[in-house]
């Protein structure tokens, strides 16, 4: 045959080879080079997961009483896949459902719409879960309705009534503890983003409910448990073709706290009483907090904040109106660990320790005049009372400001006065820091406030941050204010001019204010409780803890949390010893005497320090009462605080006394541990028992707290 024909046939053959080569190369590229990627896509294409949340763990008090429990509610769900197969997309079913549930049909349809689809209402109304998951359309349905739905299955295809667990607050002894317990809410977009692109089966899912605040949030991981996951294979039409994997849910662990519900109820009641006491004296008594800790462990036995709210308000979602109300009341955050207040004279314990640290003679004699003049300003004693030359112990007892002014002024001068470097020594600020002020205590609750220590450093940083504003205001001279009140404008301008030029200076006045817990120093009541606990236990600062341990849902011990010592405070042992010797005198012979009149101090000596902190703008001072007892063998530290509450002794003191009475079982002058609100007279050494079926063993009879036994403390 012709050459031309042969040649062209050869060309065709070569073309055929190259075509086949192309196919092999392309196959290799898709399957081997990019195979993993395509396999992942295929996985998403064909696998669907249905998650069943685990039963959330309970939160128990130290005696085993549930603070947070679960209750079952009847939930009606609709399977949208089944519904779509009904005539008219299930319009008839929805109408019948609307009638039997007595819910408008629109409402049910809103619940059925997937979030992000057309016409869907924002969460939590729309459905945030998987297409393959039945959508809950009504909860707390009464049993009769549920039964009739289940009996008339033919009329309600795809509709199911089932039991579901929701949170419940049993409130033993009416203990509220809302801020500590926290509440649940739908998982947030941020939380989902945060966990990244995980495929772990126990990852957070859009339908999950998680702890938003308090212990519910802090221990969300363990309380939540592991969801049950059914992995389904599906085809293009979404029909289930098989079950690939079934994983049973694992119930969340039980969180055992060191809180004692009965004591908590007493503390809450006594805080309310203190507020009432302030109001009866004509003060506003705006807010308050009380903390009871175990001095040797840092465990929190009770912690109360006023105002508070009913935690069950969150169940099933809070309405806009309710939320607004909560915000207006300022009841959402806890004053005990999120509120920051000037500590007033309770701070003098720290100034005393600082004096010891700075080699002042703790057993020397110091003058207590009614006033001192420093740099043209007069600093007065409380109620301008002079006591003459007195010991430091006496100065603590009568809370003499001028003694501490003198000590602070001498420290200030030694450091270099107004020209001292930012880093110059400041024994008071250093001692405050070693006692944990100015930084978070590390309590196992989210959103804790750190407080603040007034110091050279703080003042300099503050000036750096604000000098531009000050200088500009000094320049402009407050033109707006000047129009109406030229005098005030002059005052502001002068103040800002001064701040602008030497606002970084740590003046003598600053040092003096700092020494008596005034000025820029702020603390949380919890921080103050830890300070007094550290003094009580001989100088160990603990990290406060609420969680005592974890139990599995069938009662096995999962973990016990040991006390966490933060540090030995860096002050001389002699100073701690001095404080422990002096502070009981405050209760016997000083400012803490009145509230403890008649209290068996011979059996249970109480160490205390009162405080009445002046707050700019407030008509009444912040009432503080910081204490621990028994002073000779300290067990508990109690701090109570009421803003705009008057003096520590008149407002907070009597309530603290009542709490001690409840703790130690004081009746009149008799002390009987069996009368203590704590079962057995002391916090339980061991974790409570949870039976295999998950029910906790609670104290019998009066100690059970359920049903509705009035708190012992409120009887007085």
């Amino acid at each position, binding site marked *: 045959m012709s050459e031309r*024909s042969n040649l062209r046939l050869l060309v065709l*053959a070569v073309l055929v080879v190259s075509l086949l080569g192309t196919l092999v190369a392309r*196959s290799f590229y898709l*399957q081997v080079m990019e195979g993993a990627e395509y396999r992942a*896509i295929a996985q998403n294409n064909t696998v669907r997961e249905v998650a069943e949340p685990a039963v959330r763990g309970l939160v128990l008090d130290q005696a085993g009483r549930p603070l947070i429990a679960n209750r079952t509610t009847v939930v009606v769900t609709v399977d949208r896949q089944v519904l779509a197969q009904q005539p008219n997309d299930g319009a008839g079913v929805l109408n019948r459902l609307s009638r039997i549930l007595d819910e408008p049909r629109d409402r049910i349809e809103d619940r059925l719409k997937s979030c992000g689809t057309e016409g869907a209402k924002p969460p939590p109304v729309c459905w945030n879960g998987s297409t393959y998951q039945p959508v809950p359309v009504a909860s707390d349905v009464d049993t009769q309705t549920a039964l009739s739905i289940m009996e008339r299955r033919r009329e309600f295809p795809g509709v199911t009534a089932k039991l579901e667990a929701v949170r419940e607050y049993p409130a033993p002894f009416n203990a509220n503890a809302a801020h500590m317990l926290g509440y649940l809410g739908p998982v947030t977009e941020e939380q989902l983003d945060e966990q990244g692109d995980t495929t772990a089966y126990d990852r957070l899912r859009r339908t999950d409910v998680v702890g938003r605040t308090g212990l519910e949030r802090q221990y969300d991981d363990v309380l939540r448990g592991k969801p049950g996951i059914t992995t389904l294979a599906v085809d*293009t039409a979404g029909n289930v073709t098989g079950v690939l994997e079934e994983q049973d849910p694992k119930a969340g662990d039980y969180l055992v706290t060191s809180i004692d519900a009965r004591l908590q109820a007493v503390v809450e009641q006594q805080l309310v009483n203190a507020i009432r006491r302030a109001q009866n004296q004509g003060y506003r008594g705006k807010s308050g907090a009380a903390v009871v800790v175990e001095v040797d462990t840092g465990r929190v036995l009770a912690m109360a904040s006023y105002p508070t709210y009913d935690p069950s308000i969150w169940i099933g979602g809070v309405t806009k109106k309710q939320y607004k109300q909560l915000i207006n009341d300022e009841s959402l955050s806890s004053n005990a660990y999120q509120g920051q207040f000037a500590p007033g004279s309770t701070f003098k314990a720290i100034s005393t320790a600082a004096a010891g640290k700075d080699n002042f003679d703790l057993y020397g004699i110091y003058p207590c005049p009614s006033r001192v003049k420093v740099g043209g300003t007069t600093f007065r004693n409380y109620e301008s009372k002079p006591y003459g030359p007195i010991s430091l112990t006496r100065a603590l007892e009568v809370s003499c400001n001028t003694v501490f002014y003198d000590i602070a002024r001498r420290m200030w001068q030694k450091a270099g006065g107004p020209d001292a470097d930012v880093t110059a020594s400041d024994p008071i600020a250093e001692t405050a820091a070693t006692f944990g002020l100015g930084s978070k205590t590390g309590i196992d609750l989210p959103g804790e406030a750190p407080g603040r220590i007034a110091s050279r450093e703080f003042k300099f940083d503050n000036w750096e941050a604000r000098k531009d504003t000050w200088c500009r205001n000094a320049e402009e001279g407050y033109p707006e204010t000047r129009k109406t009140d030229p005098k005030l404008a002059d005052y502001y301008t002068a103040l800002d001019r001064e701040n602008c030029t030497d606002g970084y200076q740590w003046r003598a006045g600053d040092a003096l204010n700092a020494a008596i817990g005034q000025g820029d120093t702020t603390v949380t009541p919890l921080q103050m409780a830890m300070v007094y606990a550290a003094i009580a236990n001989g100088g160990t600062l603990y990290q406060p803890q609420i969680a005592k341990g974890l139990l599995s849902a069938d009662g096995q011990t999962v973990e016990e949390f040991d006390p966490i010592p933060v540090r030995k405070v860096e002050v001389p042992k002699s100073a701690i010893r001095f404080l422990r010797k002096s502070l009981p005198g405050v209760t016997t012979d000083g400012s803490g005497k009145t509230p403890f009149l008649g209290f068996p101090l011979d059996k249970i000596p109480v160490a205390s320090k009162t405080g009445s902190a002046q707050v700019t703008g407030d008509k009444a001072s912040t009432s503080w009462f910081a204490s621990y007892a028994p002073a000779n063998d300290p067990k508990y530290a109690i701090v109570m605080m009421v803003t705009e509450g008057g003096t520590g002794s008149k407002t907070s003191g009597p309530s603290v006394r009542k709490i001690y009475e409840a703790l130690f079982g004081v009746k009149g002058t008799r002390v009987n541990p069996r009368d203590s609100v704590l079962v057995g007279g002391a916090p339980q050494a061991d974790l409570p028992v949870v039976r295999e079926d998950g029910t906790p063993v609670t104290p019998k009879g009066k100690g059970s707290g359920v049903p509705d036994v009035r708190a012992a403390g409120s009887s007085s």
Partner: protein
Amino acid sequence: MSGILASDPGTHTLTKQRGYWRDLDWILLIAAMATTIFGSMLVWSASRADMASDSDPQSYLKRHLINVVVGIALGWVASRLDYRWLRAYTPFIYGASVFLLLMPFLPGLGTTIAGARAWIDLPGGLTLQPSEFAKVAVILMMAVLLSEKRDIESEPRDRDVLMAFGVAVLPILIILVQNDTGTVLILGSVALSIIAVSGARTRWVIGLIGGAVVGVLLAIQLGLLKEYQVQRLTSFINPTEDVTSAAYNANQARIAIGGGGWTGYGLFEGPQTQGKFVPVNESDFIYTVVGEELGFIGSAVLIALLAIILWRAVMIAFRADDMFGRLVATGIVAWLAFQMFENIGMSLGIMPITGIPLPLVSAGGTSMMATWVAVGLLQNVRLHAVRAGA
């Protein structure tokens, strides 16, 4: 059979051939058999899910196997047809196949599947795809026209080339109207290859290639192609753009093949295949089944089998002892090669999506029969050459 066999082309169709079994191209036969068995396995896997709700999930496979048996039988017949008979009857075969092509236009007979009007309804729910037979007919008719009346060394006359061209163009136009673009492309390639290998002057070859390119461009430019045709042809360029239409198919196909990796999920285990994510995966997208379930290794084995068939076909074309045999073999090489490339290429996302089956592998009775006839014709050409002592 021997009794009726004679050399008269007018009355006897089958020739007695001594050494038939000895002289067969066994490699070709075994490769074609192996490919058919391999393909049946894939068809089984692909159809299981669709048939799962039927009373007999294997019914689709059984129908496929019947087609295979009929196809092999037709192939056997094709391998034994006498050349002279074949040449003499080719015009009738051609005429019949053009008539069949027009039949879908007759009311009550045509069926439209996937936008292409190319099936003839037969009783019992069977359908016939006349364009498959048209491929055989066009190859035979062109081979007859370009191999007649001339010295083997000389080039074909322009008149013959023109006639051969016309023989190809007529069915191409009919199939174009039926929207079966894939078959049009294959027939064009076949016609071009046959004309080229016939030794026609170079200007014919270049002119035809140029004309084809201009034609396609004009068709798009003048809007002769409907929008969905253009979309189907271009969706492979940017398959992620649209997940609902043609591009969706291309995407799902690539996901299935890519997910196979080296060794695949195992037969019957491919999630894309068994989940019916890839449309018509027992036919047009059959390559996705081997790609996903048997991985790159399985795919390579399948392509290797197809390569052996093409290699043997090319060798038969080279060794043919006359121009008719060579052109028949050449036409079959071009047909099978381009159809394989188009079919696998579209699953791999490098060719436009058109509805054509993978020869010997896909389900589809007409294609299976036509391809086995082609294998038979290849054997026929080989036997002819061996007997001539080439």
